[in-house]
Every structure is written in structure tokens, then in C-alpha cells.
């Protein structure tokens, strides 16, 4: 009977030392087979690690492990050789870099799952309902998933016979297999910004370089295979020729020969391809006076948009022309006009030309007008911006000018939020891309998608939604709260994604709210809780701020939601996926609904 005592004693020790995370950890499936994990899946530097034995037991590989830590994974058509603690692997003799080295964790060898998925051409899918990662044959990258807001049913079981090619509604493809991308076509679209579309089969990373002598823009497309295309000669004020060539076995190089060095903007299309736009060229800037009205004149390929700031002591008017390149260098000249004493022009940012007028008496810009082909004039009102505004208001009262109204989404049906007007504010936009991810994803694009989904959810629940922008356009941080108050909004919800100075480390969701406002705080708490529940990223809590520009011009409950970190490679992949964007929008919507239902009188 002593043996029985000993066995029991061992059982107690076992029960005490059993890893407690097992109950809460992720499951792993290969196809429809659940992998019986002995330890919870670990994550290292943002990469999920899976045990090596999964290769043998679920993926049909043969394993050879030497005492020196050399690992051979032999498949019928390929052999992968890795070495413990080394961040490289050989596949059929070709060396690949690993994000994380194979290593020993909790007594077993673990390897990065993304690399394996790439080599075997598998997708890695996260199924939220099961809290499981699934390695399976590739499917389209989350497509169709979210476009359809009707999808409501969530299969509770992976094996619940989903149609081939369709994912359960709550699953997210977090890593697709690398496709062979090749350059399909270079399309010159022209226009005032000399637009060019580089047609690629799927999304790729890229690097750009603006070079001089001769002036040219070089874009290296990473991971693009196949043949280069013949050069394209174009008749354009800026671009003369577009060439492509193979730079190395992983990189295709595109060179734009330019007549003059200029700023540019590259916009990746999520479905593949890059759009390149060059800045407006600004030349012959000067000041003059006509009938007592001072005006700025310049030549440009098209009318640029500008922002202005009026500064006191000394009195200056600063005009920033957006998406422009100054041709002919900076300028700093005295002028002898009644109101203006000096003109300074410089390329302030790569895509912004700054014009500074040193003033003797205050002036304010009126509307930009075209004065002959390619020539523009900006007349000034002699007076302070306030006086100019009053003057313009008076003018508008006499001569009502059609003004672009903010986009309003009327309630789609009666619902729990009927009677509520909600301002949805997608951060950044237009010339301001916001944060930029590893793959070149722009914050302005991600947050617009999430905001439009959010607006649709809210309208379905009976709310009237006013967007501060509903397309890719620049709206200043001061106009945003104004749009909300003009529409009589009851709540202000700004949607952003985050970034950190050290890229690729910080992760998670946080919500900022107007400080010293208990209602905003309750709204933030409710939205943060529901959003974190929906997208299961790390909860970075809610934070009170009294210095956010968008909270300043309004006194309604206001929050700013930072859905995730765009500079973290894994979160970037999620934030780009329409399926994830929809889930995030639904989380924010549920938070708003819960806040309203719990707090309405």
C-alpha cells in the first residue's frame, strides 16, 4: 500500500506543476485534425512557434535530428535543413532567412510556423470561435469575407462543413503562402500629377530612391519574379521614360527618368500593384499688386491645395502648398508692397512648398484662381484672418456658394440607436498618410475602411452617421470637430491606428478620451472593452487626454480609438485584412451601443 501512497503523492505533485496556461491557450489544427499539443503554443518576436514533431505526425515529413542540433525535415519534394538557434534554413540547397531561429522550448524543439507555411504553400488561419490556429491549403486572402455584412452565422465547429473556398465568418487569414508575383504591366496614366500604375499580381514590399544626375526615381519591388518589361517612352512635362530591369533574383527595379527631381507619392493597392503620383511642379513664384490688392502668382501643373497659418510677432503669413515640388530653388527676397515686406519660398517638406510672407500689415488669402494656362494667382485680403473671414461670410451671404456638405449616412432602419447622431472620424487622409506599416500600409486607408464599416453598423442600428471624411481627402484637425457640431452630433468617435518610435515591438488596442469628462470616459471604457473582446489584441487600457486637437472644438463625448499598431508586422497583416476591419468596426459599434443603452435616460 506504500506504493499507492507514493502514486498519490506523485499525482499531487503533477497537479501542482501542470502548466496552468493550457486551459487558456490556443489550439492548433492541421486541416481538420487537431494537434494534441503538450505545451501551449509560444510566440517569439511576434511569430507563433509550433513543435517540430507536428511535421512528422501531421504533415507527412521524415525527421532527422543530429546531436549537434542539425534538423532535417524531409518531404517527398523538398528537404528543409535547419540548425538550432540559427536564423537561417536551407530548402533544397537554397538559403532562406528565418524570422526566429528553431529553439528548444519546454523540452521540445519549436520552429516558426510562418516559414513552414510558406514552404509548404499553406495558409495560417485564426479561427476565433475555436481559439485555434489552422494550417490549411491556401485560400483567398480574407476576400469576400467582410464585403458581405450579412454574414451572421458563426459555425461553432471547424468541421461544420464550410463550403470549399469559404471561411467561417469569424476566421482571419493571418498568413497566406507567398505567391510568385511578376510584373504585369506599366501603365502611364498622365494627368497633372503624371500618374503611373505598376500592375503586379499581388501586394509586394518596395523601396524607393530619388536620385539626381540624371534625375530619376527608382522603385525596387521586393519579391517580384519573372521578366522585366520593355521600356515605356512617354510624352509628359515630367516623366520621359519608365524602365524595368531585374536587380537580383528577388527584386525587380523600376526607374522613372525625370526632367527634374520632384517629390512623389507611392500608394500600394491592396489587391496588388503600386500607384505612383508625382508632385505638382511649382515655378516662378512672385508677389505683385493690382488695384491695391496684393497677390501671389506662380506657375503650376495644376491648382495645388494649400494650408495657412497666421503668426504674430513678427507678423507672418505661412502658406503650405501640399503635394508640390518647388522648381528653381528657395527664394528669400525683400518686396516693397504696402502690406508685405519680404517673401520667402522653400521646399519645407519633401512634398510641401512653404511660402512665408513677412507682413507690415495683416493680410489673409482669398480663393486661388487660374490666370491663364498653368498660371495661378492667390489674391490677399488686406486685413486680419478674422476680418477676412467676416468679409467672406458677408460675401457668401450675398452670393451663396455651393459648398461640399459633409457626407451623412441616414439611418437605414429603426433600431436601438434611433435618434442618435454620431460623428465618425477616420484619422488623417489625403496628403497626410498617418502611420505607415512595414509593408507600406497607410493608416489613412485602414482607418477609412474601418470607419465606413462602423458607419454601416451604426446606420443599421438606426443612428444617423456623419463622416468627417468618407474618401481619401485631407481634412484638417480643426475642421473635423466643426463638421460634427454643425451636424448636431451627440458623440464623436475618431478611428486611428497606432505606431511607436521603435518599430515592430508595441502591440495592442487603446482608447483615448477627453480628460475630465466622465461621459467620454464611460464611452471609452465601453468601446475599449467591446473592441478588445472582438479583436482579441492586447488591452492597452483607456487614457485621458486634454491635449488632443480633435477634442478641442467640441464639447460632446469624444473618444479616439487606436485599433492596433500598424508598425507591428503581425498587427499590420490583421489591420489590412477586410475581415479583421469588419470585426474591429463591429467591436467599436457594440461598445457605442452598450454605452448608449446603459446610459440613456
Amino acid at each position, binding site marked *: *500500500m506504500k506504493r499507492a501512497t507514493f502514486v498519490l503523492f506523485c499525482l499531487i505533485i503533477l497537479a501542482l506543476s501542470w502548466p496552468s496556461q493550457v486551459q*487558456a491557450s490556443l489550439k492548433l489544427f492541421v486541416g481538420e485534425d487537431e494537434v494534441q499539443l503538450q505545451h501551449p503554443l509560444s510566440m517569439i518576436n511576434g511569430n507563433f512557434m509550433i513543435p517540430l514533431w507536428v511535421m512528422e505526425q501531421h504533415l507527412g515529413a521524415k525527421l532527422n535530428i543530429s546531436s549537434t542540433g542539425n534538423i532535417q525535415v524531409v518531404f517527398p519534394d523538398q528537404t528543409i535543413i535547419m540548425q538550432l538557434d540559427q536564423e537561417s534554413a536551407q530548402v533544397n540547397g537554397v538559403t532562406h532567412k528565418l524570422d526566429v531561429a528553431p529553439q528548444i522550448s519546454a523540452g521540445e524543439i519549436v520552429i516558426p510556423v510562418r516559414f513552414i507555411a510558406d514552404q509548404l504553400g499553406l495558409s495560417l488561419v485564426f479561427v476565433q470561435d475555436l481559439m485555434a490556429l489552422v494550417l490549411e491549403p491556401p485560400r483567398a486572402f480574407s476576400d469576400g469575407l467582410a464585403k458581405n455584412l450579412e454574414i451572421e452565422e458563426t459555425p461553432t465547429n471547424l468541421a461544420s462543413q464550410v463550403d470549399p473556398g469559404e471561411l467561417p465568418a469569424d476566421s482571419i487569414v493571418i498568413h497566406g503562402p507567398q505567391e510568385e508575383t511578376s510584373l504585369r504591366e506599366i501603365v502611364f496614366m498622365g494627368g497633372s500629377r503624371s500618374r503611373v500604375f505598376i500592375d503586379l499580381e499581388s501586394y509586394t514590399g518596395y523601396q524607393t530612391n530619388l536620385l539626381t544626375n540624371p534625375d530619376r526615381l527608382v522603385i525596387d519591388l521586393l519579391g517580384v519574379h519573372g521578366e522585366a518589361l520593355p521600356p515605356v517612352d512617354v510624352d509628359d512635362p515630367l516623366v520621359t521614360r519608365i524602365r524595368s530591369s531585374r536587380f537580383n533574383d528577388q527584386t525587380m527595379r523600376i526607374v522613372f527618368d525625370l526632367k527634374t527631381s520632384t517629390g512623389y507619392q507611392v500608394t500600394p493597392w491592396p489587391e496588388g500593384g503600386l500607384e505612383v503620383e508625382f508632385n505638382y511642379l511649382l515655378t516662378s513664384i512672385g508677389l505683385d499688386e493690382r488695384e491695391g490688392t496684393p497677390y501671389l502668382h506662380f506657375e503650376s501643373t495644376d491648382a495645388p491645395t494649400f494650408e495657412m497659418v497666421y*503668426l504674430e510677432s513678427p507678423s507672418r503669413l505661412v502658406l503650405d502648398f501640399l503635394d508640390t515640388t518647388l522648381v528653381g530653388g528657395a527664394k528669400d527676397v525683400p518686396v516693397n508692397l504696402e502690406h508685405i515686406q519680404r517673401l520667402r519660398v522653400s521646399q519645407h517638406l*519633401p512634398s510641401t512648398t512653404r511660402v512665408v510672407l513677412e507682413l507690415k500689415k495683416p493680410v489673409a488669402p482669398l480663393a486661388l484662381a487660374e490666370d491663364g494656362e498653368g498660371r495661378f494667382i492667390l489674391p490677399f485680403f488686406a486685413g486680419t484672418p478674422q476680418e477676412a473671414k467676416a468679409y467672406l461670410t458677408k460675401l457668401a451671404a450675398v452670393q451663396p456658394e455651393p459648398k461640399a456638405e459633409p457626407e451623412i449616412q441616414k439611418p437605414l432602419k429603426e433600431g436601438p440607436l434611433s435618434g442618435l447622431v454620431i460623428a465618425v472620424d477616420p484619422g488623417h487622409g489625403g496628403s497626410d498618410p498617418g502611420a505607415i506599416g512595414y509593408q507600406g500600409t497607410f493608416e489613412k486607408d485602414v482607418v477609412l475602411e474601418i470607419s465606413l464599416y462602423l458607419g454601416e453598423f451604426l446606420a443599421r442600428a438606426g443612428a444617423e452617421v456623419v463622416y468627417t471624411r468618407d474618401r481619401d481627402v485631407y481634412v484638417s484637425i480643426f475642421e473635423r470637430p466643426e463638421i460634427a457640431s454643425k451636424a448636431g452630433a451627440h458623440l464623436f468617435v475618431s478611428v486611428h491606428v*497606432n*505606431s511607436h518610435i*521603435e518599430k515592430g515591438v508595441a502591440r495592442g488596442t487603446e482608447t483615448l478620451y477627453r480628460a475630465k469628462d466622465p461621459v467620454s470616459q464611460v464611452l471609452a471604457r465601453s468601446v475599449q472593452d467591446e473592441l478588445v473582446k472582438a479583436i482579441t489584441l492586447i488591452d*492597452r487600457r483607456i487614457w485621458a487626454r486634454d491635449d488632443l*486637437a480633435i477634442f478641442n472644438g467640441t464639447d460632446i463625448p469624444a473618444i*479616439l480609438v487606436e485599433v492596433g499598431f500598424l508598425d507591428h508586422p503581425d498587427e499590420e497583416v490583421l489591420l489590412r485584412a477586410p475581415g479583421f476591419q469588419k470585426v474591429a468596426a463591429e467591436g467599436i459599434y457594440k461598445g457605442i451601443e452598450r454605452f448608449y443603452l446603459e446610459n440613456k435616460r
Partner: protein
Amino acid sequence: MKWERRLAVLVVILIFVLTVRSLWFPTRDKVEIPVTVSPASPELIELGQPYYPVYFPTEDAEFLVPEFRIGQATIERVLKDLEEGPRFPFLVSVLPPQTEVVSYAKQGSVLFINFSHHLVTNHPGGSRAEILTIYGIVNSLVGVEGVEKVQILVNNERLHTLVGHLLVDEPLGKDYSIIGAWGN
């Protein structure tokens, strides 16, 4: 029967342990990465020696954390400390790459610091990074030689915001809400 009693006691303990384990669920989302933190500072501060804090963000963007430097704080020294960046691993720079302090001037209790355009052009964006950059600068300098507020300038211009979130068009005071402790 002595062993029977012992067996009974063990059975009871086993049932108790299993019950407790089955009731106690760990939080699902919390990922804890064990971090070994070296002692308080690379330079040991001796008793009575003067020292001052310079604030840097943690790698995970949670907080600004003071890193103490030996000596008497001056505006020049703190600006140099900010440019040089943190000495600890797990802390990251406040300033985006290549950012330099071009000039500074003190008017009353307000310190005007004129940064190179890299403060904006090389800034990664995101409200968290913006908060940490601004208050990394402000918190480190407030308190030095009678500085109560800091006005950030870029290319000698007063901006509305650096990257679109926080207002910096007026002098800012210290923000205590984002100072955290670490390695606890």
C-alpha cells in the same frame, strides 16, 4: 492503520488541489515575458551625489521611464541626453532618427526648443508615439533651471501638431500621467 490514514489525507489533498486548479483560470490575453532588469542605473549613484532624470519610452510604448544621470541638470545636458538616447535596453529614443536640436532660448519660465525637421518628417506617426515624443522632451526639461513650460518648434516654426494628434501650438507643462515604473 497508519498508511490508511495517510492515504486518506493524501486523497483529500489531491481533491483540494485539483479543485483549486480547475477553478483558477489564468487571464487569457495576458502574455508575460519575463524581463531581467539590471540594477537601477549603469552608473551607481552614491549618497549625496546630485542626479537628474531624463525620460525615455519603454520598448512596448507603455510608459515614459526616468533614467537617472549623475550631475547637475542643465538645459544643454538634458538636450544632449535626449539626442543620445537611453542607455538601458528596453528603453527607446524619444526623438525620431536624425533629429537634432538646432537652437533653444529661454524666455521667463518658458523654454523654446527649435528642432530640425526630422522631428516631423522621420516621426513614425501614431498618437502613442506622438505623446511619448512630446512628453519625453517636455518632462525631461521641465524643472531644469527654472523651466516650467516647453514650447516645441520645428524649423523655427510653431506647429499645430507634430503628426496630427496632440496640440503643440502652445507651451506645454509636465504630464505625470504617462510616467511609469518598470521592472516591478
